[in-house]
């Protein structure tokens, strides 16, 4: 039996997502910074890459990160996102059997970094991978059985819940699969076993 991570990675890669796996937060961070430094685009632009607030960043010195990867910014606005080439955010859950990332994207910054830039780097805690959609909804709602999910009476679903499976795609011209229409053309998933900052 493949692990949840292995199933998730295989499904995500099958829909053109890139999946990288690290055991520690430090290794994951090095990979993200390396990737930002290696990407093409207007690198002199002060918000070349924008990173939305997330648990992964807890306790990290943002200014020091920008020094190590020039063009990396943590102020996410409509203007910075429209100009950015790279968006970085952390996901709340992932679904193994479809290779899907799940995020409460109510905070608009979370949506901006994953919709407007052409590269989206998605950080994920390895233990946030659940088997299927029912389990994912079960994490979001109190469940009393596998087929019957009750919305939490107190809150209900978050205003904006995003499910992301691979990069933006279309086959609208002659059915030729083309990656990157309105959303990211690259989805880079960074799975980290020990996130330190929690999920």
């Amino acid at each position, binding site marked *: 039996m493949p692990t949840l991570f292995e199933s998730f990675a295989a*499904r995500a890669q099958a*829909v053109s997502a890139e999946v990288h796996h690290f055991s520690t937060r430090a290794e994951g961070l090095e990979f993200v910074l390396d990737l930002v430094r290696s990407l093409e685009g207007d690198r002199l632009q002060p918000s070349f890459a924008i990173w939305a607030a997330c648990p992964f960043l807890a306790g990290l010195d943002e200014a020091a990160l920008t020094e190590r990867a020039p063009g990396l910014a943590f102020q996410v*606005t*409509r203007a910075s996102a*429209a100009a950015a080439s790279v968006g970085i955010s952390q996901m709340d859950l992932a679904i193994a*059997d*479809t*290779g*899907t990332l799940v995020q409460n*994207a*109510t*905070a*608009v910054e979370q*949506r*901006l970094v994953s*919709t*407007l830039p052409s590269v989206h780097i998605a950080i994920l805690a390895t233990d946030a991978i659940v088997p299927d*959609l*029912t389990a994912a*909804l079960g994490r979001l*709602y109190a469940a009393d059985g596998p*087929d*019957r*999910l009750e*919305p939490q009476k107190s809150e*209900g*679903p*978050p*205003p*904006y*819940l*995003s*499910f*992301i*499976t*691979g*990069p*933006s*795609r*279309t*086959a*609208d*011209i*002659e*059915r*030729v699969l*083309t990656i*990157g*229409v*309105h*959303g*990211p053309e690259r989805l880079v998933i960074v799975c980290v076993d020990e996130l330190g900052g929690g999920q």
Partner: protein
Amino acid sequence: MSSTFKESIDEAVHNSNLTGALGRFSEAYRESRAKAYEGVDFEAVRTRIAEIKGGAASHLDELAEEFKKNAESRGAKVFRASNPKQVKDYILKLAKANGVEAIVKSKSMASEEIHLNKHLEAQGIQVSETDLGEWIIQLAGQRPSHMVMPAIHLTREEVAEIFSKEVNERLSSDIPRLVKIARRELRDKFLKAGMGISGANIAVAETGTLVIVTNEGNARLVTTLPKIHVAIVGVEKLVPHISDVVPILTALPRSATGQLLTSYVTMITGPAPNTDGSLKDLHIVLMDSHRTEMAQDGKFQQALQCIRCGSCLNVCPVYRLVGGHVFGKVYMGGIGTILTAWFDALKESDEIQSLCIQCGNCKEVCPGKIDIPDLILELRRRLVKDEGQSLKEKAIFAVVNNRRVFHAMLRSASLLQKPFEKDGFIRHLPLFLSGMADFRSLPAVAEKPFRDVFPLIDQSAVVGQARAAFYAGCLIDFAYPEMGSAVVKVLNKAGIEVIFPEEQTCCGAPARYGGAYEVAAKNATDNINALLKRDVRWVVSACPTCSVALKHEFSATFESLGMHDQLPRAAELAAKVTDFSSLVRSLVDEGRLKLKPGADLGKVSYHDSCHMKRTLGVDHQPRELLQLAGYELAEMKESDMCCGMGGSYSLKMPEISAPILARKLASLEATGAPLAAMDCPGCAMQIRGGLDKQGSPIRVRHTAELIAEMVE
């Protein structure tokens, strides 16, 4: 049928871009869909969806109120609109009140249904579709030809031409480059728009949640960047519980595009923040527009179980030839025919319903478990009731029902053509059959109908043993009596005495498929009386269409007409009816029939007839019999795809029947088998006629004939 409609069919079948694109897609779709459903119990999923959506359709008003209450408690504004005008007025008023000059839209069939863009544009508001296919169509000033892939009929060169005009630069037909142009052009529109309009794939009543499914990511931008979001939602999208999204999201992407899940699924529950920190002005328009009427119609309520995946188009042999511009209005194909009849008017569906060949492919794949072919027949019945039957059709049914007159007429017609006859085929046939002779040769009408051949068969060896009644049907009786003789020979070898009730008449399928249910009911009654007159263990038919009529449709016709007193007798007959191959397969199993062992008869390719495979559920039995007889199976591609016969369909729609047949012949020839077997005399007539016209040496035989040669 109007001549403009006939012309549009003709134009479509001769548009090689269209038929090429649709044909390649439907072939690829079959495989990608199967792969996507690997490990998923499709029957269980669609049964669940049918329960959820069928239940919802019975409680539309309550669910709409519950949704409204819950969405409003989360801060959305919900407007319940009973007709398209209310929807358009509401959105226009909202746009005007907020000074909106430009709107971005993600795909919404509901908005297309009410022609919203035209209405807003007439008021000076710029509306941009943002789904790539929809945008192409909008720029081209056309209408979508597929519900999921709106621009499938256009080539990359045509798209380059359309985009070149829009951006005022000469663009090459490189697809990734064209997609980049669309990204650039539409990005600007997203950022400037004052309002975003979307549809929704699911609306969850208990939470007030909208679920929106896309691949391009345009719905995420439409619902994020403009400060106002309007979602137009047909009330049939309502489901009671959040858990109900699981089966629908399991089926929708798999059935639509063969994906496990689309790139993006967005669930919106009340307003989320805008980019300037304000809260979204979220308006949800719940549109009824005839859905409640439909829910109250006992027969058509099930059509509200549709999840708009478009799989009924993708598997349809007619749609893949003519596309959605001919086969549909806003909604297309089988389901589109039904929705057009309700959302527009019954009369509006008159021409497009006639395109359905009743092959049953759509019913087999529908994730909403909708019996689309049956609902189309019901439309036909209601149209005939409203409009009356054409005189020509009335004349045909009258003749068909008088067996000896019908045979004499066919026979004399065929005799007149005697000089043109060659190897059992007629090149042309006058009268109402003339329209079909162009693309296939017709069988010579037998000198003696089977009913006159039958008494000459010596059954003395089996008299007094188990007894079966043989139901011949028109084609075996008049054109292929040798198939009937083969059936009798095989059954006699198994120790079964065969009787042929003389009073049997047409099975009523032509009348039923033509919407003439009263004629079909008369046929049903006559046949029941004839076939139940003497005590028999089985009623055997070697024509799947007849078998389906005898087994299923007699009672369905009686039910439609409220003739409930006839149902017990129909059930009594149905219990005795069996198709030839199923019966013979079990006779072999029971050791009552032996096939000559050790024969090496070479390759045969088996064609699955629509009613045989999909209504009777018989496919392996004839194959096993052929293998036991000593044949080697050479499977053709799409062996269960319709041959284009469809009974009288090939008379009414020769321009569609011919290219469907051409595909079948190509699949058959590619197997290299010198012999094709099938269980349907109608398919045999079509395929044999097509091969003869091409001068092909491939022989076509009924399974019964091949087995009869090999019984001991």
